[in-house]
């Protein structure tokens, strides 16, 4: 009897509480006035296209007010609403999923009401689109301070883009705080990847088809250590640039640093035979070749080429053009003759980070005024080259007044992730944009959603080298064990000409 009475009391209390909460949350706010302008929100989720499988796009309202009411829906239907005195809009995962499913291929709205002095103002609806094209579910990136030479803590992480889960792939505190860099995956596949370790365990970890080994940081007799990498689609080769890099620091102005090649060559590492193949056309002191990337069929290696550096060369006169060189893996002489695809230097510009779309029709690259470390160049912008026609256009829809640089395509070629410093000019953040291969147009990029919409305001690590992954990396333990292993030596074979 007592138990029953207790149960009734409990249910009654819960009902009262639920009723009370419902009373606090106005389901339908009657606007006293309407505002034609859009409300300011952060992140800028206005007029963007979200993939159907993205995590909730939480945001906060930047307008001042005493109370806020936000509705979210499709067409005439309101699927979720929230009210309160705080401007943060934290969307429950379930409601967000429902919205994404209902809004596939359509627009949806955020409708915002703000109360000031007991009067509600309705702002113009914020319209966004949901693309039925899914984005690769994971994003790998390195987190570190956007510093210069010293380092302390850094790590390579993967973020599940369908929710807010972040998992370390490798953190340097587990390997004696050595430097980790240039993690590179084979076309969004976590089964093939490599990364450099710099420090007492100096070398490069290569993971391919479940086999992990650590190779020497440079080929025996090579001019410099292996630096920027690109996996051949077959997984058998990795193209490496071999760079001698130095940092220089601006004495005035807002640009803090210039990272410049003093020398750079290219080679293709044969993972099976531990040989670095190269050719006098891309190896030698006459020019600097860097940032290799493959065509999807693996028969062309794209790269950037600049004039050789001498001590008399002003750094702001170093400029790189876009080149391509044929590659036939099984030939005795695998390299063909390089040709220039786009001579940016003639226009006083310099190219970096070429990336070919998975269908092989487009090549997206970064262009800045000089040098090739465009992540420190506020003027750097993304350009799209149509490989079928040779036409180059400024991808204005992607760019901002600040740095827009390192980028990678998703496995389907429908999505792009780019590193942009548009929020503050110092910290690179991942932005995503949808790509329409038929029109060659991107949508307005949106910032990686976070559980806390204020996250980026105090997060002082930079997102370095964001790359899509179709599945999570599962080889963390093997990776940790391999780092301390002895290096396998690699030999150098230079093809004469």
């Amino acid at each position, binding site marked *: 009897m007592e138990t029953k009475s207790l149960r009734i009391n409990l249910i009654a209390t819960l009902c009262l509480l639920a009723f009370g909460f419902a009373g606090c949350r106005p389901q339908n706010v009657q606007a006293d006035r309407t505002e034609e302008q859009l409300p300011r929100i952060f992140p800028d989720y206005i007029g963007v296209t979200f993939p159907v499988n993205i995590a909730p796009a939480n945001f906060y309202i930047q307008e001042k007010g005493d109370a806020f009411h936000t509705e979210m829906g499709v067409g005439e239907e309101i699927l979720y609403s929230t009210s309160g005195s705080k401007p943060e809009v934290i969307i429950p995962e379930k409601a967000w999923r429902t919205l994404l499913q209902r809004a596939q291929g359509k627009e949806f709205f955020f409708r915002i009401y703000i109360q000031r002095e007991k009067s509600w103002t309705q702002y113009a609806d914020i319209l966004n689109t949901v693309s039925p094209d899914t984005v690769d579910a994971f994003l790998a990136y390195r987190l570190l301070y956007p510093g210069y030479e010293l380092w302390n803590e850094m790590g390579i992480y993967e973020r599940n883009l369908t929710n807010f889960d972040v998992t370390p792939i490798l953190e340097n505190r587990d390997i004696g705080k050595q430097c980790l860099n240039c993690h590179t995956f084979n076309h969004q596949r976590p089964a093939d990847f490599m990364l450099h370790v710099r420090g007492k365990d100096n070398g490069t970890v290569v993971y391919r088809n479940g086999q992990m080994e650590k190779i020497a940081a440079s080929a025996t007799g090579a001019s410099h250590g292996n630096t920027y990498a690109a996996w051949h689609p077959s997984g058998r080769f990795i193209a490496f640039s071999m760079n001698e890099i130095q940092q220089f620091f*601006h*004495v*005035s102005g807002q*640009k803090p640093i210039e990272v410049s090649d003093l020398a750079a060559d290219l080679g293709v590492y044969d993972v099976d035979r531990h040989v670095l193949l190269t050719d006098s056309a891309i190896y030698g002191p006459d020019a600097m070749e860097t940032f290799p990337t493959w065509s999807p069929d693996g028969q062309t290696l794209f790269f950037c080429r600049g004039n050789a550096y001498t001590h008399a060369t002003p750094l702001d006169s170093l400029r790189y053009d876009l080149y391509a060189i044929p590659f036939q893996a099984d030939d005795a002489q695998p390299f063909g003759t390089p040709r220039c695809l786009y001579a940016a230097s003639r226009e006083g510009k310099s190219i970096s980070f070429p990336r070919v779309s998975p269908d092989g029709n487009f090549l997206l690259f970064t262009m800045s005024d000089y040098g090739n470390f465009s992540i420190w160049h506020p003027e750097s912008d993304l350009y799209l080259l149509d490989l079928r026609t040779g036409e180059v256009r400024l991808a204005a829809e992607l760019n901002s007044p600040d740095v827009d640089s390192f980028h990678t395509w998703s496995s389907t070629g429908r999505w792009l992730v780019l590193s942009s410093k548009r929020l*503050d000019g110092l910290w690179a953040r991942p932005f995503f944009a949808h790509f329409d291969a038929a029109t060659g147009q991107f949508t307005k990029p949106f910032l990686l959603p976070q559980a806390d919409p204020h996250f980026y305001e105090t997060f002082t690590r930079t997102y370095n080298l964001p790359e899509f992954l179709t599945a999570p990396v599962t080889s963390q333990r093997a990776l940790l064990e391999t780092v301390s292993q002895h290096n396998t030596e690699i030999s150098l074979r230079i093809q004469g000409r």
Partner: protein
Amino acid sequence: MKRKLPFILTVLLFFIYTGLYGDVLSHIIFYHEQHHLFLFSSHYFTQQIETVGWMSYLTDFIIQFFYYPWLGCIILGGILASIYGLLTYNIQIITGKNDWLQLSLIPSLYLFLQTMAADYSLVPVVSCWLFLIFFTLLNLLFSPYWKKIHPFVPEWKCSTKVTYSITIVVIAVYAVTASYLFIHSYNMSEHRMIKAEQAVKEKNWDEVLRQTGKYLDKRRNNQLIYYFRHLALYHKGELLSHLFDYPQPLGVKGLYFPWNSDSRESEYGHFLYEELGHINEAQRWEFEAMVVWGETAPHLLNLARYNIIIGRPRVAQRFLNLLKQSLFYAEEAKRLETVLSSGKVEGLHYALAHAPTHPARFANVMNIGPELLYLCEQDQGNRMAFEYLMCDLLLSNQVVRFVEYLPFIQQFDYPEMPAIFEEALLMYKLGIGEEAFAATGYVIRPQTEQRFARYYQLFQQKDNYRLRKEFGKTYWYYLNFVSPYGNKIITN
């Protein structure tokens, strides 16, 4: 008395510890406060728990109160003293007997001695303290159970007189041992360096001179000490008149830190560049320091200040956002926030604000000489850049270049040519001859010529004692006997 003894000892320890942290160990409180920052935010909480753990998080919470040094002394003294008090209390609860051998003193004294090194983490101290608090609460809860084992604990069978005598002897042994260890492990050099750094941060130049002078009086050499001393000498207007008061065996390295990719040095480079107005370089050093030493208040504040003046308010805002989550730096952050868009920060001079950015010019991070020259050219009237340039050239034996850049002196109102300049000019004159020297337009006072004659006489007599005594503070003596670059003038 037997009940009061632990209490008396706890109070005594508290006063001793607090007194020491307030005086000879005051640098410890300052050092910890400057190298830790506690933030009231969920992100900071999650990050700390995931990376360094609960104890580190709680230690940082406690260290934030070291912002007020007197409070820091009381807190740290209180924690260490209560470690003894709690331990002895627990022994009483568990055994029902007093700790007549005062074994409870050992952990407290041990941890105290450990804290004497500035880079000793306070995490073990706080962990021990928190554990004892928890343990005490647990024991109080289970005290009825403990009482059941009291009869099984052997009785102390000595008379009261003997018991107290033993206790006093034991305490005396602990006190003597602890004092011995304290004196032998006390690092006076570390104390001087940290106190000098504190004074530099407070721009208390007299105190900098006092601390560095005491250090150098012991005939020890340290780059950081010279570096701080030169900064203080400049600000007191005494750099040129007192440069050679102490020998300069480090040469130009006593003036600045060449960039050696050294984590420890990274904390100090920004001081000089900030004072010179070379803000981009100050910003670089400070950012490197933050990377290595973490997001602590001094680094965040300086990075915010530098980025405001460089014209990157959005970057500055990020640093201020962090500081606004702290207890004691939030006000300063809010104050800086009000000048974000102005591009100006009180007390900060951006000497290269109008320097051309095209063609790009890059800093020489190994040798400050070209930077000083550039500052003199771009920021006319930058007296500090001029004096440091002259000192840099003199200390590096580059008398010819010293004479070449001496005309910058016309921008300043020195009442007369500084003595060390005249001494260098005289060396130059000896090198190029009277006629060529006359063409430079410089005149050397007869007293300087006479002093040199005396110097030369002693030099020829190889009377090193008198040379050092009479001329140890001259440029001549530096060039002939101290300079790490040899005893010859470098002409190119």
